[in-house]
């Protein structure tokens, strides 16, 4: 009796061990997608039923998506999507191109005052954004930058670059640099070692850093809302969504806001998913695992 009992317990335990990732995954999916689901449901609701609480769209409609992309009133949500792409991509590229070499130097090259440099870079990302705003605005007024792309990209450096350098530093520090040495010893040129060994090794780190910086730039609102200066030709989606107005003063167009929120979220996640596949394959093909 006891034997079968413990055998049974052992079996359950094994089954549980095999199943627990799925149980964990289910909890994560519920937690992450629950509120998002509500967002999507609201996005499909008729605006006159905004506050309904049915778990599926009552009076489903596509009007909210149409309203979000409607350009008859001079709104350009599609344009704003493009602007966000331009701004976030440029910010990411700048942060990686300038921050990557810096992080490499901080990890791999002999340098005095390394902790001081790292601390200074961290320090730079500490000043509250709201405080940077006023002087930045005055500067950009003087040099006629208000309402241009560069006025939206350059200030993003203030948070994107320190973020990139710090994350890359932690990645580079953990990389097996012996492999580079070994390759050089085997007669590879430094360029070959870089391309064939280092780049594949650094790719996941660069990619992850890229995503993080991109998302941070994609999310930025406070600086953009002031520095875009009301110019819809350069304003990013965060500003465009905040500008959504109801058909009446005071009315908050929740349904249209949620539709726009879904529109900006899904393509981003899909893109990351596609890229991630590629990176993960690259990773397993490399010498890492």
């Amino acid at each position, binding site marked *: 009796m006891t034997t079968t009992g413990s055998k049974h317990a052992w079996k359950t335990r094994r089954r549980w061990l095999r199943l627990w990732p799925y149980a964990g995954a289910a909890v994560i*999916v519920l937690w992450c997608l629950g509120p998002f689901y509500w967002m999507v449901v609201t996005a499909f609701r008729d605006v006159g039923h905004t506050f309904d609480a049915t778990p599926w769209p009552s009076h489903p409609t596509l009007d909210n998506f149409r309203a979000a992309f409607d350009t008859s009133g001079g709104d350009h949500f599609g344009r704003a999507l493009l602007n966000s792409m331009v701004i976030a991509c440029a910010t990411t590229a700048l942060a990686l191109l300038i921050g990557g070499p810096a992080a490499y130097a901080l990890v791999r090259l002999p340098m005095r005052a390394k902790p001081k*440099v790292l601390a200074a870079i961290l320090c730079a990302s500490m000043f509250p954004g709201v405080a940077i705003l006023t002087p930045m605005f005055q500067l950009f007024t003087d040099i006629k930058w208000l309402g241009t792309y560069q006025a939206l990209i350059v200030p993003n450096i203030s948070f994107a670059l320190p973020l990139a350098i710090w994350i890359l530093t932690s990645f580079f520090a953990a990389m097996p640099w012996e492999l580079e040495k070994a390759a050089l010893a085997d007669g590879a040129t430094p360029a070959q070692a870089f391309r064939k060994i280092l780049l594949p090794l650094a790719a996941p780190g660069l990619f992850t850093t890229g995503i993080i910086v991109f998302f941070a730039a*994609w999310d930025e609102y406070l600086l953009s809302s002031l520095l875009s200066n009301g110019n819809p030709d350069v304003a990013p*989606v965060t500003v465009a969504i905040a500008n959504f107005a109801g058909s009446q003063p005071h009315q908050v167009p929740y349904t249209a806001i949620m539709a726009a929120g879904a529109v900006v979220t899904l393509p981003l996640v899909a893109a990351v998913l596609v890229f991630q596949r590629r990176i993960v394959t690259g990773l397993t093909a490399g010498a890492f695992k």
Partner: protein
Amino acid sequence: MAKPSDTTAHRRSRLGPLLVSPSLVLLAAVIGYPVVAALVTSFRADPSLKDGFFTTGGEFSGVSNYLHWLVQSCGGTSCPAGTLGDQFWTSVLVTLFFTVVTVSLEVLIGLLMAVVMNQAFAGRGLLRAVVLVPWAIPTAVTAKLWFFMFAYDGIINRALGAHILWTDGAWSSRVAVIIADVWKTTPFVALLLLADMSGIPGGLYEAARIDGASAFQSFLRITLPLVRPALLVAVVFRVLDVLRIYDLPAILTQGGGGDGHATTTLSILTVRQIQQGYGGASALSTLTFVLIFGVALALVRAFRVNLVQSEQHGMS
């Protein structure tokens, strides 16, 4: 002619500063200028009213803007309830409270998420994409979404069958802000940890299992030490972020709850003060900077040991 190794060493020692300097120059331009400008403004008086019209202000006013916040001095008397000066110290406490609680929760949940995502099972890639969803929604929209869900007749009360006035109570409003922030930013922590975790060779775990270590033990002895650098970077940046948190409480609770400012953070206070005068706002943001700097310094000090270690590991 020098020996080749000397040249290499020399070149390498020159290359370091060369690679780092563009970053430093750029940051000095983007951050240095505004910081100095704000510092100068913080010692200047705001305009005052004379015969119905404002003076231009800007005269040197010593440290009076700082005293306004630090000792709640409003024109010689103590700042009464309903002024911004009165809210400074509670805002400091609220901001620190949000920081400690949200970052702790994010690290805990982020670790768990990363561990699950790191398991080999069908649909893992999909799960990784799912985790990105909360993070990909712009904060401005997230705040509106949670505001909508935390409304009295919102879905959260209906789902719980409760009648909680989320945005009204001091603690319920804080809980609402914390839930929304944790939901939104845990993916950042999880993703950062996952990237390091997936780099841990499976052989290590195999060896530990053969030595009779339980799954929890190998998590403590193998996973945690190896993801520590990433974890600390995540913690530092999350702490710096939450210390400046603005959008979420500003939209979700308007800084209200409790006696009317239970969720007013330092950034919310700064934005309100900007509407009332730049001198005071500059002093406030300088104080915020000092606070963040202090916290960051403490963190980095606790962190440095590890940083040097990992550098040496990297240099080997």
